[in-house]
């Protein structure tokens, strides 16, 4: 943690510092046709502006969550397991951030995935937790396979026809330590590169829970809240965005890829926000909000502003971890996640309430809180690129609409949980703040949620972002470049908060009339657009059907062959068993019979065959 901070601070003090050290792990000699230089798989670390930013997030949030866990998990008998898995996760995440080539990146990527699986299934006695863990693992695996295919394509491409320098000799290493980076692909690259870009997008979508692989993240809330805060909000899910960012900076996307990324990001930002609007579970509301915010980051990367996306990742990590930890504090105090049972917690939990409020303001994009700067930056960045493709428009508007929804749903949660006079469910225990180890991280993260956005005004932080942005020809956008745009987005945010207050403020509970046409919309939203049902159906019918077929083949064709052979050999050897009498003279007889057989072969059969062959 201290080391990470030092590196990040050092990077900020002298931007543009690159440290790249590596060694060859495995060298395969090449063949002249395909890989003339052979294939070197290297392991190395690369510290540059991109990784420094992430390193700061991972270590600071990781440390605070670990501190908070002391209070949150203190009664849990799985505590050693919890800390072991959390530490493994942090190590893997640090490794991922510091990797200097895609293959190494992929290894750590898988490692954080498996840690996520362990930690979602931390309460493995609960069937819902176990199945959520499995779901998360399988869904992200789809993305992982696509990602790996993408790596293969890049590798093939760059080790055969790539430009000279670091690339040609080794398709895996994505940096040779010089700045600014020059993406080697841009505009309308070849079809192969477009496909590779789409594969990378698939991998990122799996890890960052983007549509249509978003289903796992809300279910991942079965894990401890601290895990949700660290892994499923601040760090691991951001790895997908980070992957897109490094790919766009080091390799580059074709314009088709960019459009696809913008589409996925913009749509997800809106789509996930709608689901958060109706959900009664405090953690899941925040989870949908995470998906939505990740959508913003993906949108930014797609529009060509990788560093703007990472800037939002940076601020988001703090305020989203804050929201989760505050929610965890509530859950710790009263033992329920149902918003409709809470209420009036503002009085008994002042620190938590204030922390959640700050997180909510940051999320809603109200200045001067962190979310405002980065979200506005993204909207401004996409706005500046609207001319490059007509299809950017609808996704820009969707992202804009999501601003309103975001403000509404997070304040709906805040009003439901904290405003009013008393809890709605009188059976709940009396709420009280957690121990100091839980309050301190909340306070620190609150401070970050307020000021992290202002970092952009530090010249060195700007330089940090600029350096990583590379020579794409598009400078990163800073702050409210377009005042009208900011005005509209803040207006939407305030309107969302106002609507939330009107419907849910002061302990009010808004009940949608039974005959309202919105009821059916609500139902669809509550069922998450029936995606889970559809996936289950596909899983059950299609995959199970295929598996049944495969099982049949396995059982009767493959196993049948093996069993048949086994039966033949079995009966033969049963016959031969009788020859084992144990009597020495019998064995001597066999030896002599064998010897005679050899003589017969050598002296009679062989000359006969030889004469035949010679004669024929």
């Amino acid at each position: 943690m201290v080391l990470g901070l030092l590196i990040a601070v050092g990077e900020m003090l002298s931007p543009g510092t690159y440290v790249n050290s590596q060694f060859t792990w495995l060298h395969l000699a090449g063949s002249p046709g395909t890989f003339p230089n052979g294939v070197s798989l290297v392991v190395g670390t690369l510290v540059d502006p991109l990784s420094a930013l992430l390193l700061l997030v991972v270590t600071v949030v990781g440390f605070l969550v670990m501190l908070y866990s002391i209070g949150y998990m203190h009664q849990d008998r799985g505590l050693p397991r919890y800390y072991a898995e959390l530490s493994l996760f942090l190590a893997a995440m640090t490794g991922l951030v510091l990797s200097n080539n895609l293959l190494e990146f992929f290894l750590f990527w898988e490692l954080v995935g498996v840690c996520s699986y362990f930690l979602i299934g931390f309460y493995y006695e609960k069937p819902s937790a176990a199945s959520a863990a499995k779901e998360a693992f399988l869904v992200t695996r789809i993305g992982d396979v696509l990602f790996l295919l993408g790596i293969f394509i890049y590798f093939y491409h760059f080790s055969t026809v790539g430009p000279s320098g670091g690339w040609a000799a080794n398709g895996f290493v994505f940096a040779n330590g010089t700045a600014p980076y020059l993406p080697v692909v841009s505009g309308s690259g070849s079809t192969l590169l477009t496909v590779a870009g789409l594969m990378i997008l698939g991998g990122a979508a799996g890890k960052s829970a983007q549509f249509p692989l978003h289903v796992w993240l809300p279910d991942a809330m079965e894990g401890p809240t601290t895990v949700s805060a660290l892994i499923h909000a601040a760090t691991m899910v951001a790895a997908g965005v980070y992957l897109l960012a490094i790919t766009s900076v080091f390799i580059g996307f074709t314009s088709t890829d960019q459009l696809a990324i913008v589409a996925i990001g913009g749509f997800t930002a809106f789509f996930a926000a709608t689901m958060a609007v109706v959900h009664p579970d405090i953690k899941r509301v925040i989870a949908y909000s995470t998906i939505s915010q990740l959508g913003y980051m993906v949108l930014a990367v797609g529009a060509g502003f990788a560093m703007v996306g990472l800037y939002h990742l940076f601020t988001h990590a703090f305020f989203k971890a804050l929201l989760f930890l505050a929610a965890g504090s509530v859950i710790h105090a009263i033992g329920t996640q149902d918003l409709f049972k809470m209420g009036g917690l503002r009085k008994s939990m002042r620190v938590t309430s204030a922390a959640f409020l700050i997180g909510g303001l940051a999320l809603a994009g109200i200045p001067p809180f962190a979310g405002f700067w980065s979200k506005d930056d993204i909207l401004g960045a996409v706005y500046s690129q609207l001319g490059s493709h007509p299809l950017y428009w609808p996704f820009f508007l969707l992202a804009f609409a999501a601003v309103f929804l975001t403000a509404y749903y997070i304040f709906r949660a805040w009003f439901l949980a904290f405003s009013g006079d008393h809890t709605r469910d009188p059976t709940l225990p009396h709420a009280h703040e957690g121990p100091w180890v839980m309050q301190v991280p909340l306070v620190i993260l609150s401070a970050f949620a307020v000021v992290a956005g202002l970092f952009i005004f530090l010249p060195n932080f700007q330089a940090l972002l600029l350096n990583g942005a590379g020579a794409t020809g598009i400078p990163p956008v800073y702050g409210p470049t377009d005042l009208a745009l900011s005005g509209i987005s803040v207006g939407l945010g305030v309107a969302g908060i106002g609507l939330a207050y009107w419907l849910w403020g002061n302990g009010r509970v808004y009940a949608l009339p039974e005959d309202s046409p919105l009821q059916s919309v609500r139902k669809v939203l509550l069922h998450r657009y029936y995606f889970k049902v559809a996936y289950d159906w596909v899983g059950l019918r299609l995959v199970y059907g295929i598996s049944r077929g495969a099982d049949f083949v396995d059982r009767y064709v493959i196993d049948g062959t093996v069993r048949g052979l086994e039966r033949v050999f079995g009966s033969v050897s049963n016959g031969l068993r009788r020859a084992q009498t144990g009597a020495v003279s019998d064995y001597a007889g066999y030896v002599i019979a064998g010897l005679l057989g050899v003589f017969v072969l050598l002296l009679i059969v062989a000359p006969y065959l030889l004469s035949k062959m010679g004669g024929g």
Partner: protein
Amino acid sequence: MTGLPVADLLVLSGALLAVGIFGLLTRRNFILILIAVEVAMNATILNFVYFAAFAPTAAGLSGQAIAVVLIGFAATEVAVGLAIVLALNRIKGTINVAQATELRE
């Protein structure tokens, strides 16, 4: 080279081998089996010595050398065999090989 004709020698050594193998297969007494093996082996040694006489000096010498080595082998073999006989007798109280069938499956 005078004396025994080749055909007579082959008949002699063939007979020795046959006697040896016959004894090996039919005897049940371990010591008699060892003796039968010795007889069969001596057929081989006889062949080596006899045909060595026809060969040029160097090769002939090596034929005789092999015969001497084989005699040494026979001695070691008997030593090992007799050790087994003693052990067998101690365990089973008999040296009848028909009763030593512990290695049966």
